[in-house]
């Protein structure tokens, strides 16, 4: 039986039984809609997690083990020699050492801050980064300008988000965008601490200038050029050769496991606390998505049962017609194909409507969230992420549910005794 003729024959029956089949299609649409909705919600939340915890699959942060025998003996150190060894590991594309500011520093700001008078004092926590790591994120030169010159700093974008969503509303400060702050100077006093009330000999007053925003910058404080940190640490007699950590970039994600093993062989460790957080939250999101998707699958399963009942009723009603089809030359397979074609059309319609329901519900929820939820940090514009795969899964599941539901009725129709069917009243 040719597909075009099959469709023509099925279409007539579909039109006639529109009411009953619309109920079946509605059930399929509900299940499919829930499935697509939850899948898109899961994908959307995963994107939020990725935004908050940007994790590269090619990079690892190498640190000195906190309880290593070597470090107890004072031997284990992340110095230039260790960095050279890391760079020599097979599969390593680059290694970027980082160094903490190892002396206390404070900032005091009294004056106008974007139109608002403020008085502020903060401990400065800083990490030194190689300019290559910051790259294009720095809008102004990110290099050590020497003693007495403003120290360029880059700030993590997530800190700006926290400022805008939490700090600024609480203090009545204006919200800021990156371009507002690039070039902004903040005074800093090196060698002094508010917390310990300690001042190192010969403290130095200078300033920091914001040169850009980067996901590479530390979340705890600001990031300065590595050379500047080394210079300051050296000036105050702190360790200026041992790095706090080294960011190692593999040539490909496939090399990372081998790289991790080589790092361990060097007596070093990989700090994957942020990655673990991202993975744990991501796993929680996936788990919830899976649970909700299973619920949607259950609804779709019930829709399949409903479809089965509808098609059993339809086959019973059309017993005589099925006898006629057999009388004019239809095989058992032809009869089954007609019923399954009707089911496929029902499933397809249910799937398309389900996807539209999911899109509509998501848009509605996003709108409610925009209006009803407070503006918290990292609040996304949308909690959903729809892509072609979701549409394909939704329509595919709807089609499958309808076909599975109609399978037994189609078999029953095919097995009808044509002679008995023709005498059915």
């Amino acid at each position, binding site marked *: 039986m040719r597909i075009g*003729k099959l469709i023509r024959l099925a279409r007539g029956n579909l039109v006639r039984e529109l009411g009953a089949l619309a109920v079946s299609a509605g059930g399929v649409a509900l299940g499919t809609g829930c499935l697509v909705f939850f899948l898109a919600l899961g994908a959307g939340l995963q994107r939020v997690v990725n935004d908050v915890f940007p994790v590269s699959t090619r990079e690892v942060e190498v640190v000195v083990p906190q309880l290593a025998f070597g470090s107890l003996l004072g031997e284990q150190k992340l110095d230039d020699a260790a960095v050279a060894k890391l760079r020599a590991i097979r599969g390593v594309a680059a290694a970027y050492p980082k160094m903490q500011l190892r002396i206390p520093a404070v900032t005091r700001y009294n004056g106008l801050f974007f139109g608002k008078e403020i008085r502020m004092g903060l401990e400065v926590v800083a990490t030194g980064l190689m300019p290559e790591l910051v790259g294009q994120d720095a809008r102004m030169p990110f290099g050590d300008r020497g003693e007495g010159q403003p120290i360029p700093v880059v700030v993590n974008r997530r800190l700006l988000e926290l400022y805008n969503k939490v700090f600024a509303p609480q203090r009545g400060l204006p919200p800021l965008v990156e371009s507002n702050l690039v070039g902004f100077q903040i005074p800093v006093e090196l060698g002094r601490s508010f917390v310990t009330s300690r001042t190192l000999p010969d403290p130095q007053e200078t300033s920091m200038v914001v040169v850009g925003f980067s996901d590479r910058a530390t979340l705890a404080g600001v990031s300065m050029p590595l050379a500047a940190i080394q210079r300051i640490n050296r000036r105050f007699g702190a360790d200026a050769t041992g790095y706090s950590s080294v960011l190692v970039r593999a040539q490909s994600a496939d090399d990372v496991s081998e790289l991790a093993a080589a790092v361990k062989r060097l007596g070093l460790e990989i700090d994957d606390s942020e990655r673990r957080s991202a993975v744990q939250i991501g796993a929680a999101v996936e788990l919830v998505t899976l649970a909700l998707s299973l619920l949607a699958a259950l609804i779709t399963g019930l829709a399949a049962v409903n479809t089965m009942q509808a098609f059993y009723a339809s086959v019973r009603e059309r017993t005589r017609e099925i006898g006629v089809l057999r009388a*004019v*030359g239809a095989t058992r397979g032809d009869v089954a194909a007609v019923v399954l074609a009707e089911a496929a059309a029902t499933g397809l319609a249910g799937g398309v409507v389900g996807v539209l329901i999911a899109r509509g519900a998501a848009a509605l929820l996003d709108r409610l969230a925009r209006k009803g939820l407070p503006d918290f940090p990292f609040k996304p514009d949308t909690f959903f992420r729809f892509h072609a795969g979701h549409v394909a899964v939704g329509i595919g599941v709807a089609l499958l549910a309808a076909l599975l539901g109609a399978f037994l009725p189609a078999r029953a129709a095919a097995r009808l005794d044509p002679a008995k069917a023709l005498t059915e009243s």
Partner: protein
Amino acid sequence: MSAIELRAIRKRYPPREPGLPPQELLQGVDLTVRRGEFVAVEGQSGSGKSTLLHLLGGLDRDFDGEARVLGCDLRAVKDAELAALRHTQIGFVFQSFNLLPALTALENVLLPDFFGAGVPDAERRAREALQRVGLADKAGSRPAALSGGERQRVAIARALLARPPLLLADEPTGNLDAKTGEGVIDLFRQLHREGMTLLIVTHEARVSHAASRVLVLREGVLHADGAEAVETE
């Protein structure tokens, strides 16, 4: 060459109630119908006429005996081969028309074209068949909009679409008034003159009068009209 050959056909149905004997509707039917013959089978209601017709059309294969229709051994062939036989070699006309309500008259006539390898030049043939039964102007009408006579003529047009050599009809005038029934009988006469083999099950004398041979199904056995003879050849 025979169009139909039946030998010692027996057909039993399960007992209606436990403890009763099985019903034996056909009790050794022998029948030979030559190609081009017009045979009417009469019998009272419940005598097994429709059962005989379904059996001849390969719609019911659960019987004892030997049955050959257009050279095809009905008990030996596979289901798909029987479907092909019904598709191209046998036309069916039923008392209650059996049109598909969702399809137009033209689509109902085209129904055999939906199956198997289809029917060559089906649409043209369908329109010709409708013209022949006088319903060219009703091609787009659905069965609900047609009278009983018109529905039966659409059913006949459907049976003629594949130009089968054998037409089996079950009480084709049973639901029609006298005038409309006459028109249908005239159509059967015409088909007979064109060489088609017709076997019509009926209890109406006017149909039997049109046939070249009349048989009576009584107590499960076929008799020649007005005789007790079993041999019908």
